[in-house]
């Protein structure tokens, strides 16, 4: 599905990894559009290319082939500095492994993207508090990540992702390291953000959470397939 008002648009994107003379086709001919305010989930079995796709969407990695338009601007050939700037202003990341910086406090972790933006201290403080209040952790600003539970750490990661008011939130298995209670809490938080207008693209293989999205994109062996096709492929692989 491709529309002109797409926030993200991938045309024929492919990704090949070269390792010791072995070519691995992680993604092939990916065509994908995500509209502003849309909540998209990317599903598929392990090794199907979900994280690679998310990395390309988040400009953490570049495609080998194809075109990538982010908010109408070509993003596939940006240099490292340009990609960093776009990541900082347009994209918010939520990782499965939280990836908070252990030597920084909760406040400093959330503040980090804003410091890279060159924002003034007063505005940063306001944004950080606003963001932490949004995730219910305003009282934990001086704590270090290792003093928090897994669920709290992921909420800090969400706060860090939204503090810069990005165009899109990219979440890579955000509940993968959480128990069901904390996982549900984080998912509720994402839903609330979506209700408030946030665009979210989430990688998950948990069917409970993929159905919360407006739309689910199924990946299999690096290609987008229909839901039926995906189920058929899975059954063929696993067996009756």
């Amino acid at each position, binding site marked *: 599905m491709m529309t002109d008002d797409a926030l993200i648009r991938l045309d024929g994107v492919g990704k090949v*990894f070269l*390792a010791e003379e072995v070519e691995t086709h*992680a993604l092939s001919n990916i065509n994908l559009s995500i509209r502003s305010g849309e909540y998209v989930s990317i599903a598929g079995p392990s090794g199907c290319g979900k*994280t*690679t796709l998310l*990395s390309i969407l*988040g400009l*953490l*990695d570049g495609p080998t082939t194809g075109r990538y338009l982010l908010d109408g601007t070509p993003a596939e050939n940006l240099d*490292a*500095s340009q990609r*960093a*700037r776009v*990541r*900082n*202003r347009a994209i918010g*990341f939520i*990782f*499965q*492994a*939280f*990836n*908070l*910086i*252990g*030597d920084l406090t909760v406040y400093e972790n959330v503040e*980090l*993207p804003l410091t*890279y*933006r060159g924002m003034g201290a007063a505005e940063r403080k306001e944004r950080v508090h606003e963001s932490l209040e949004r995730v219910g952790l305003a009282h934990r600003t001086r704590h*270090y*990540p*290792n003093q928090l539970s897994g669920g709290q*750490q992921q909420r800090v990661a969400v706060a*860090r992702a939204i503090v*810069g008011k990005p165009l899109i939130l990219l979440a890579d298995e955000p509940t*993968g*390291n959480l128990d069901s209670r904390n996982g549900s809490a984080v998912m509720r938080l994402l839903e609330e953000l979506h209700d408030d207008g946030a665009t979210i693209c989430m990688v998950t293989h948990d069917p409970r959470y993929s159905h919360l999205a407006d739309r689910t994109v199924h990946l299999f062996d690096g290609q987008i397939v229909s839901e039926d096709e995906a189920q058929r492929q899975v059954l063929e692989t696993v067996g009756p």
Partner: protein
Amino acid sequence: MEAHRGIGADSFMSPTIRNALRRLKRNPGFSFFAVATLALGIGLNTALFSVVHQVLIAPLPIPGSEGILMLTQRNPRLGSGLNSVSPAGYLALEQGLRTIDPVAAFQPIELTTIDDEQQPRLVRAAGVTPSFFRLVTPRPIRGRTLTVEDLGPAREYSSLDHGNAVFVSERLWREAFGARENLVGGSIHLDGRRVTVVGIAPEGFDFPLRTDVWLPLLFGDRASVDWGSFRLGVVGRVQPGRSLADAQVDANGVAELYRNAVPPPYEGMTFPLTTVKERLVQDLRPNLVLLFVLAGLVLLVICTNLASLFLITGVVREREFAIRVANGASPRDLLAQLTGEMAVILSLASILALATGAFGLSVLNSIMPDRVSFLWSFRLDLWSLGFCLLIATGAGALTGLWPVRRATRLDLTARLTGLGATRRSGGQGRAHAVFVAAQVALAIVIGTAAWVLTATYMQFRSADRGFEPEGVAVAELTLRRDRYPRITEQNAFLQSVLDRTRASRRVSSVAAAIRLPIVDMAGGIYVRPPGVEPDSELESIGVTFNAVAGAYFQTLSIDFLEGRGFEDLDYTGAPPVAVISRELRTMLFRDEEVIGRDLVLGPWPDQPRRIVGVAEGVAQGGYTGPPAPAVYLPYGQAEGQPLPHVYVIARGGSSADSIAADLTDAIMGLDPGVAPSDLSSLESRISRLGRPWAAATWVTTLIGLLALGLALSGVYAATSGFLVAQASEAGVRSALGAGPLRLTWFLSRRGAICLVAGLPFGLVGGMAAVRLAQTALPGADGPGMEAAVVVCGTVFLTAGIAIIRPVLSTVRRDAMGLIQHGLSGRSA
């Protein structure tokens, strides 16, 4: 589980070692760095510790030398540095000491003999008292040693021509007399007279100092009042059960006993005692202590390098250890694995260290000065090797345990799923940072110390000595007393030699002297201005005495500051005159007019000498220390005991070798019986004397460079490793929008903080090293601050290079790869 343990215990070592070898093979860079660093460091340290152990700690390699003491006579008014004893002093000690027995004296002298090929040959001889061979008891390979019966009647109060018996060295017997069997009981020429050989010493026995001929030495009546001729070496054996302190108390008692009997200016004398070993090593001690400190620093660098290496390895292999733990590895298993790896590295390093150490010692042996090499041939000490290995193993074990400790405390799920980045770096980060700072500090200390020491040694060798030895040829003459019994005959002969040499077109100036600058020791006599009593406020001063003939100052290019040098008239019996050195002028006359003033020399108290000139001071007795105060007399005016040993020196437009040939022709043409020995250039003589300094310079430079290289490689590895450990965090920052510049700044700042943290410690340590060098080497005035600045620059440059690589790698890698794998893992 039990079965598994059993199997593991049975085949504990072989798979461990096999895996360790495999791992080393897979990581050639790491393996090379670890093994090479350890081998170089341990080899170097083993060599240095072996030297220090053999010289400073182990007994002297002279059989029977334990318990032998050397006695000296010190007179406060004559200054220090006189390590010999007067005849009266010796007699007082011999009669008064109760804790030392026997007490023996020897008087070294150079004499001539005629070998079997009828060639005159200079030999080192020693007049020894009868007690000498009771103290040192060589087993003669032929005949016997000297006994009391060999002494003849004393013709003078102290002389060397008593009796006709001599004991000769195996070396002289072999080299000069073809090891003929009938030498014992036969006679040889010695300084113009025939003496009987009573025995031949065993091979290698040549105490004191390479003696070839031992003569009887006896004292007449006047010896008991001669407190001023410091010509004897005195040795004795401390009685069993008595200590050095007991003996010193005893010697102090003897000095006290003679307090009122000793005339001025010798009153207040003392008899300091030292062990033979202490005397032999006292000059070497400062250099060895410095070397020891440097070696200790090198060992510290090795330990830090090793620790740093294991720390980095631990971080890089954290995931591997987590996997092993997840698969059931116990801390003991991990420890066994790391121990095996360390054992393999240490074994390889030890083998190479043996080779490195042996090579280092062979180099050291080849450049050691004679006075060291005649006593010690340095060999690799396995205790030293063991000690260095133990220290290195200890450091490796302590830091090797770190990864084990971490691995057993890891949140495995977190580590295996990439959650590591959320953990606060805490101890690990601090340990890394501390290692970087420590490496920086050590590198600065070592670099500064090595620089200053090398510069100091070079400064000693190249300092302005007050004269120019270049192009000066030297011939050393021993004038036989049967032909030249008085100073008048000697002077006449020397004047003829000078006249004949001067006739050569290649020679521009020629002179004779009894002392040469640097080559010969300072001291000799005391002086005072006339009218100044010895006990007045202006005390007598011990000075270097030199009797010269010909154009001495011109030949050596010694500048004249005031007045004139000696003229022909001064050599032919005119009123007694003297030239003094700048230092003596300052000490005696300060700013007063000096030319035309009189000076009294100790041996000639009733014959004041008119000062006619002031010359630039020259160094005596080695490179170190300021120029000695000196007084020069015309040779013919140096009345008294004939001087057996004279130098003839000449300068010209040709090379020193061709001028030396002219000197030989002149001397041999006048008297073939006067054997000019050791014909050489003054420069080469000084250079020979400078071998200890040259050796010290080379050794220090070599060790310094190696140590600095090790320290810099440590700085590189620690800095680089520290930044590699920051890669995951850099990945997170990159994902959050940090561009290449910000990442570069982030990593560079992290590295720089550690470097700057090490800087003050390095500077303080460096300055302490400079101070230590200046304390241990008097006269050292190395470029302390400049050295520290340059070394700091080098260290920071190295660290800068170490920062560049991980920074570039980080900037080039994709953020997700960094987050998941850091810099050590492969990108997906």
